[in-house]
């Protein structure tokens, strides 16, 4: 009886191992949506319908590659919050970039 139980467990372990390999293989070949970067999911959208758009220079269509990963720790944002919630400090420190408007500009826009 004990010998039969042991034999059966051994087979079950093998079966589990084979199943795990199959599942891993499927995941590698066809990853689920949650494991796929959005950029890859929307590849068809990125190849926009207008040929002219596809030809646009990269600076027009590309996003900000410097974007920090969302989800990173926010503990270190204390300094930002301390200043950006302090009206007095902002009134003192905030400065508008100098407006550069051409003298040639005219009309509504």
């Amino acid at each position, binding site marked *: 009886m004990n010998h039969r139980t042991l034999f059966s467990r051994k087979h079950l372990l093998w079966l589990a191992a084979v199943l795990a390999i199959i599942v891993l293989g499927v995941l590698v070949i066809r990853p689920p949506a949650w494991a796929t970067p959005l950029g890859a999911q*929307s590849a068809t*959208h*990125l190849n926009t319908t207008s040929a002219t758009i596809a030809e646009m220079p990269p600076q027009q269509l590309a*996003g900000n590659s410097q974007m*920090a990963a969302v989800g990173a720790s926010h503990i*270190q944002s204390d300094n930002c919050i301390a200043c950006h919630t302090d009206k007095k400090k*902002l009134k003192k420190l905030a400065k508008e970039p100098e407006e550069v408007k051409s003298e040639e500009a005219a*009309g509504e826009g």
Partner: protein
Amino acid sequence: MPPLEVWQKVLVKDKFLEKDVHADIGCIACHGGQSGVDDKDAAHEGMIKKVGADPAKTCGKCHVDYATAAQTNIHRLQTGYQEVLAHRGADFTDPTFTTAYNNHCTGCHADCSDCHVSRPTALGGGLLSGHLFKKTASIWQTCGGCHSTRIADDYKGGHEGIPADVHWEKKGMLCSDCHADDASYHDGSHGGTRYEDPTAPTCEQCHEDVKPGDGVDQHDQEHLDKVACQTCHAAGAYKSCYGCHTGIDDKGIKYFASEPSQMTFKIGHNPIKSEKHPWEWVLLRHVPTNKDLFAYYGENLLSDFDALPTWKFTTPHNVRAKTPQNETCNNCHGQTDLFLTEKDVTPDEREANAPVIVAPEDIPKPVEEGGS
């Protein structure tokens, strides 16, 4: 709407930190910059001001449907601009043209944050409400901030002598009450201009009771088939723009200059006839483009300029049930001044506008009052 003070533009409300789920992400995770430093310039080094520029890497981490749709969004990619410029012969593979386009046309680009957390650049920018995110864009600050004189002023009655749109005045309807703000609205995969969007609103969606026999004489089948709703129901003139030129001045500053706008009301032939826009008679508005729009950059950059009219199909947002032109039959029939005729179009634009110009003999003849 006056611009915000500079400190107001960057003030974060306590309410954002307490109640907005986006605050949990943390400033630096989205905006970059340097932590642990007190000096302002040092803290802002490497900071990303407009986080929503790349939806896939930011907003799309959570808002997957919207960010996917935003990959083709018309506000983000300006496909409408590109469609009409390409139609006029613009070559988007030509570096000379793309330089001109990027210098002067992409300023109207709007990404996620331009609508949902910040004021548009046209209003001087700054946070909408202390960094609180708005699911539905603000009618006056956001939609109206860009679509100002040609939509918002019509809608709220901002043009002297012309009443506000009844949908605003009596119902207080917001832009999103007609222009759905779900993911379909953000999807620009239809390509082309906004009029090619299958989800674009139509009057009939709400006014399904408008049909022959509904008690309005002019709602006979012929009028309903041939005349766009706004032709009868726009309350008055709306803005037309003219003569935009672009360039770079002696100091290296990019500029555009346009001729004074005019309030116009012109009925013409429909330049975009389709199943969705089947009418013969529609309202037309002059757009600021002209043959020399990019002449500073090179000759003939819009090599097929005449391929599209400069008087384009328009849907003014100053709708009323009763209007001067629908008060009687002959307030429209026989009123030559209401129609776009050759004399309204400058000689150099007549070829481009040939499909929409109304020949004098085509203007509907006066009728015996009481009939149609």
